[in-house]
C-alpha cells in the first residue's frame, strides 16, 4: 500500500486473470469460441474506459460506439488508402479520436448535469451519418474491404487463435493501467469528485478538467479497440457502430458494475454472449426478431432497479460492516485522546 505499490488483492486478481487467459487460450481450439472471446475482449476494452467515466466521474456517454467506429474507420482508411502501417494507423486514430472527444467534452463537462450524455448522443449520430454518407472516404453502407491484418514480429495475426493471444494480453495490460490510475493522485481525485464534487473542488481538484481527462481517455481506449476490430474482421461498415451498440456498451458497464475494473469485463462477457444467443434464436425463430432491443432494455432496467452496483461490487476490506448508513454513535471515551 505504501509508496504507491500494489495491494496484494490486485496482484492476486491480475494473476488469476492472466491464468484464465492462458487456460482458455491453450485448451479451447474452436474458432467459434475463440472468435467470441475476441469480440468480448474488444467490448471489454471499450467498457473498461466507459466504466471509468461512469463509475468515477459520474458521467454517461451515449456515443462510445462512435469512438469505437472512429478507430475502426481510421485504421481502415489509413491502411487501405494510404498504405500506412496498421500500428501507426492505430495510434493516429487514437490521437484523432482523443482530440474529437476533447473538443466535445470541454464545453459540455464544464456544466453540471448530464450535458455530456446529450453531446455524445449527438456526436454518435453525426459519426454514424458520416460513415454512411461520406462515401468517397468510407464507401458508404457497403463498407471498406480488404483491411490488412496486424502482424507482430513478422507473424501475421490472421486467425482467431493468433488474434486471441494479442487481444487478451492487451486487455490484461489495460486492466492493470486502469487499476494504476484509480490508485493514483488523479484517480483518487476522480473518486472523490464522484462521491462529492463540491468537496473535491474545495480540496483543489479541477473537477471539469478531471472529468474531461477521463472522458478523453475512455474515447482513446474505444478508438484503440475499434482499430483492433478493423484489423481482426478486415472489413468495416457503419451498421455495428450505431446507437444500439452505445446502449449495449452502457449496459455492460451497469450489469458488470462500474466501481471496480473487473465489472465492465464481466459485463462485456455476459452481454456479448447474450447478444449472440439472441441473434441465433432470432435466426431460428422468426418471432424473436427485434426482441433483442427489448431484452437489453429489460436487462438495463432490472439491474438499475435491483442491483445498481452490478454483478461485481467492490470488496469491503477487513470484515468491515457494509457501509453503515450513519456512523456509529461515538462513545464519550472512544474519541477523546484522539484529537489533542
Amino acid at each position, binding site marked *: *500500500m*505504501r*509508496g*504507491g505499490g500494489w495491494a496484494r488483492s490486485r496482484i492476486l486478481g491480475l494473476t488469476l486473470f492472466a491464468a484464465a487467459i492462458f487456460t482458455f487460450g491453450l485448451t479451447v481450439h474452436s474458432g467459434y469460441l475463440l472468435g467470441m472471446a475476441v469480440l468480448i475482449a474488444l467490448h471489454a476494452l471499450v467498457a473498461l474506459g466507459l466504466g471509468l467515466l461512469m463509475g468515477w466521474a459520474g458521467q454517461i456517454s451515449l456515443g462510445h460506439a462512435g469512438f469505437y467506429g472512429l478507430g475502426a474507420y481510421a485504421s481502415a482508411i489509413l491502411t487501405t488508402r494510404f498504405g500506412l502501417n496498421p500500428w501507426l494507423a492505430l495510434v493516429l486514430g487514437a490521437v484523432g479520436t482523443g482530440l474529437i472527444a476533447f473538443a466535445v467534452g470541454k464545453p459540455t463537462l464544464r456544466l453540471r448535469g448530464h450535458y455530456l450524455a446529450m453531446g455524445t448522443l449527438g456526436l454518435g449520430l453525426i459519426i454514424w451519418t458520416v460513415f454512411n454518407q461520406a462515401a468517397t472516404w468510407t464507401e458508404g453502407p457497403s463498407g471498406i474491404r480488404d483491411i490488412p491484418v496486424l502482424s507482430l514480429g513478422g507473424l501475421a495475426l490472421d486467425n482467431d487463435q493468433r488474434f486471441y493471444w494479442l487481444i487478451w494480453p492487451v486487455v490484461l495490460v489495460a486492466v492493470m*493501467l*486502469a487499476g*494504476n*490510475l484509480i490508485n*493514483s*493522485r*488523479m*484517480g*483518487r*481525485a476522480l*473518486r*472523490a469528485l464522484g*462521491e*462529492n464534487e*463540491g*468537496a*473535491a*473542488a*474545495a*480540496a*483543489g*481538484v*479541477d*473537477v471539469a478538467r478531471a472529468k474531461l*481527462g*477521463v472522458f478523453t*481517455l475512455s474515447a482513446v481506449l474505444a478508438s484503440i479497440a475499434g482499430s483492433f476490430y478493423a484489423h481482426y474482421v478486415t472489413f468495416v461498415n457503419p451498421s455495428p457502430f450505431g446507437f444500439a451498440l452505445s446502449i449495449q456498451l452502457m449496459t455492460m458497464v451497469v450489469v458488470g458494475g462500474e466501481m471496480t475494473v473487473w465489472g465492465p469485463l464481466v459485463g462485456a462477457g455476459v452481454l456479448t454472449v447474450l447478444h449472440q444467443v439472441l441473434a441465433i434464436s432470432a435466426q431460428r425463430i422468426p418471432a424473436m426478431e427485434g426482441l433483442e432491443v427489448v431484452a437489453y432494455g429489460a436487462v438495463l432496467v432490472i439491474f438499475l432497479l435491483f442491483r445498481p452496483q452490478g454483478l461485481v461490487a467492490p470488496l*469491503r*476490506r*477487513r470484515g*468491515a*460492516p457494509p*457501509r*453503515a448508513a450513519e*456512523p*456509529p*454513535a*461515538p*462513545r*464519550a471515551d*472512544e*474519541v*477523546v*485522546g*484522539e*484529537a*489533542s
Partner: protein
Amino acid sequence: MSVPLLRIERLRKDFGGVHALSEVSFSVREGDIHALIGPNGAGKTTLFNCATGVFSPSEGEVWFRERRLTGLAPHRIAARGVARTAQNLRPWREMTVLENVLVGCHLLGHAGMVAGALHLPSSLREERRLREITMRRLEQAHLAEYADHLVGELALGQQRMVELTRALASNPRMLMLDEPAAGLHTRETQELGGLLTSLRGQGLTVLLIEHDMSLVMSICDRVVVLDYGEKIAEGAPREVQADPRVVAAYLGEEVS
C-alpha cells in the same frame, strides 16, 4: 499585521427574494481565530460559499492577501491557500482515511492521469512523497492506526478529525470551518479548541462558524455577528457578547 489576510467587501447575495447577505463587510487579520456567528439562517454558510467560489455573490468582492477571489473557481481559490470544511459536507466515506488525506494533498502534487496509469517514475516518486506527508499528518492527528479504514466506519468525532486533517494537508494559509463542533461531546469540543489554538500558534488563520458559544468565547480573537444577512456586531468576544443587538438576535437562544 496591518494588511488583513481576508477582506469581505460589501458582500450581497440574493436567492430570489431572499436576501441571504446584504452589504456585509469585515476583515480577518492574519494569525487570528475569527468567529462568524449568528442564528440559524443568518447567512453564515452563504458567506463561506461566496468566499470559496461555490456561489458568485450578487454584489461585492472577497479579497485574500490583496488578490481578488471573487470570480475564481473553487479549486483555484483552494490553490491560493484557502481550505475549508463544510457544514453538511462530509469526508469521502467510501474512501479510506489515508486516501481522504491524500486527496487533501492534491494541490501538493502534479502527476496527471497518464503518468499515474503508466506508473512513470516521477509519479511514483511524488506518490511516495505524498504518502509520507499523509502518514505524518495522520500520526499527528492520532489517526494513523485507522489509515486503512473506510471513513464511513469511524465515529463522528474521528470523521471530523479526518476532515480537519484533510483540510490541513495542503498547508493552507487560512482554514474556514463551518460548525466543526456540531455533534461533538464536550471533551471533544474542548480538544478541538485546543487544536485550533495550537494551529494559530503555528501561524494559521482560522475563520470559524460556530454555534457553541463557550468554544467561541474561549478561543476566538474576534467575532462577527450576522443576523438576517446583515452584520449586526463585530469586536472582541466579550464586547460582542454584551451587545444588546446580539442579545436581541439570540433572544430565546442561549448565549453563555
